[in-house]
């Protein structure tokens, strides 16, 4: 029984390690230049934000359009704190404070607004993100529209890789637990969930707060990596960029989010030569995917090493443990 869990855990760890080594080897042999490195880091950052958003949209079924606002909180926390304390310790503290602050804002905003349904929630979260951006633009401490420059850099691809893996582990394990099942139950049928003693608001808020904290983490990493922040980096467009990853990959599929984050990151490089036409192509892809596959490319499908590697050992499935 416990052996099977260890087996699955080890096989996932091996997969992560293999990807790590692959990137490492490619950097040694200069297959990935500095530009490729930047792409990998930005993919990882988008992935962290998108996995957080998929927890909110896909798992708890709450349509948030305000992810950029929470990223902005994390980005500015890191910009201010890591500049004041330019050490690794300062940077780590800045990420923690950013995530905490973002979580608190999400809690305050979420408790009343998560009662709203569907598109009303979307528009309310959009409003919250815009309010955050306007505050950042006008407050003295955030230095207005110009933003903050020369933020010390503590981010390399290894850090982002490690945190991406950690994010996926946390979210996937959470989803496959009592808490996660309750979150999904609220999505599937709120009235039924409530009739079974599930405090629906609580579980929506849990998902929303974790999503916001992951967004802040992504924002903090980005601020330190590109070494600058400005309010226009966290406009509605940024929320849409993350939303596209979630929607194209499949609302409710973490595997889909991971694949799309990587694919779009690479596509971004390929389309770089198209200049501003790139955005037009993205828009068309978004519409076309919705028209032909409204559930996203992977739907709610999840890759499972259990079925891929161990499907012959059918006996293992009889123990009803879906926790691999």
């Amino acid at each position: 029984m416990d052996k099977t869990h260890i087996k699955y855990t080890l096989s996932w760890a091996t997969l992560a390690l293999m990807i790590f080594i692959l990137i490492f080897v490619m950097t040694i042999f200069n297959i990935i230049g500095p530009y490729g490195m930047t792409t990998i880091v930005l993919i990882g950052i988008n992935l962290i934000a998108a996995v957080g958003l998929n927890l909110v949209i896909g798992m708890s079924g709450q349509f948030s359009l305000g992810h950029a606002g929470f990223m902005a909180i994390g980005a500015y926390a890191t910009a201010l704190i890591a500049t004041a304390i330019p050490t690794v310790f300062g940077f780590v503290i800045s990420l923690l404070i950013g995530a905490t602050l973002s979580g608190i804002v999400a809690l305050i905003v979420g408790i009343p607004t998560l009662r709203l349904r569907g598109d009303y929630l979307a528009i309310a979260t959009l409003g919250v993100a815009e309010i955050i951006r306007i505050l950042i633009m006008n407050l003295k401490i955030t230095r207005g529209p110009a933003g903050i420059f020369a933020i010390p850099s503590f981010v390399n691809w290894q850090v982002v890789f490690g945190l991406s893996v950690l994010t996926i582990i946390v979210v996937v394990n959470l989803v496959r637990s009592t808490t996660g099942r309750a979150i999904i139950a609220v999505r599937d049928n709120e009235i039924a969930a409530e009739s079974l003693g599930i405090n629906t608001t609580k579980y929506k808020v849990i998902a929303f707060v974790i999503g916001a904290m992951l967004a802040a983490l992504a924002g903090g990493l980005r601020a330190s990596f590109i070494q600058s922040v400005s309010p226009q980096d966290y406009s509605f467009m940024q929320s849409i960029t993350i939303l596209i990853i979630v929607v194209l990959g499949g609302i409710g599929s973490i595997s889909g989010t991971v694949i799309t984050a990587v694919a779009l990151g690479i596509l971004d490089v390929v389309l770089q030569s198209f200049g501003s036409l790139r955005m037009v192509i993205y828009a068309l892809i978004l519409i076309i995917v919705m028209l032909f596959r409204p559930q996203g490319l992977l739907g709610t499908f999840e890759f499972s090493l259990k079925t891929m590697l161990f499907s012959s050992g059918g006996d293992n499935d009889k123990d009803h443990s879906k926790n691999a």
Partner: protein
Amino acid sequence: MTRTILKTRDLSVRFGGVTAVDQVSIEARENELVGLIGPNGAGKTTLFNLLTGVYKPTNGEVSIFSNDKLININQLSPYKRSQLGIARTFQNIRLFKSRTVLENVLIAMTAKNKSYSLQAILRTPSFYKNEEKRQQQAMALLDIFGMTNVADELADNLSYGQQRRLEIVRALATKPAILFLDEPAAGMNPQETKELTDLIKQIQVQFKMTIILIEHDMNLVMAVSERLYVLEYGKVLATGTPIEIQNNPAVIKAYLGEEG
């Protein structure tokens, strides 16, 4: 004489100008099986929604027996009422369709168990132990109702009768003291209805709980109910044993109209 476990006093709710439930005072005793009948639109489901907390009453109060006393639950939301021992099924089945049968039952056990989020994220041995224990409990419950063979099916793939059955199992997983069944036989064929009749009796005996049943199938409701309330235009028209109700002139008139 067993004690009263559910009681309403002058319970009313108005939507706009319509009084859907009008000064209803009913009660149910421990381990009693109470039927609730009445023509369409009489306010039966609305009454259920008032009792389970989906709607808040305009007037009157709902009380249940909990912790050795009768407490007023007027202001409690549905999830809090569930935690106090109220469970229900729905007229239009409300399962978690994207989840398996087993998961549907596990979800119903959420509130009664501590959730170990941190242990779950870290996948500690205690997480696996807890998880296994809960799955065994859920499987044991499914076993009582002969549903272990479909435990891994998606709820959406079950037959109509099986879906209704799962909804009842799921409600029982919250370990309620009072179970509300809203038209459990709706859309069932005679064979399924027969099985349901046995099932309801089995639950009453085996789980020792109070069951309140809305049902249009008169054979079913007369066969299982110990006492009946008849609702018409939101008011209680009559109450009594199945025999008394069947011979009550006012009830016959309400059901058969002027021609009766």
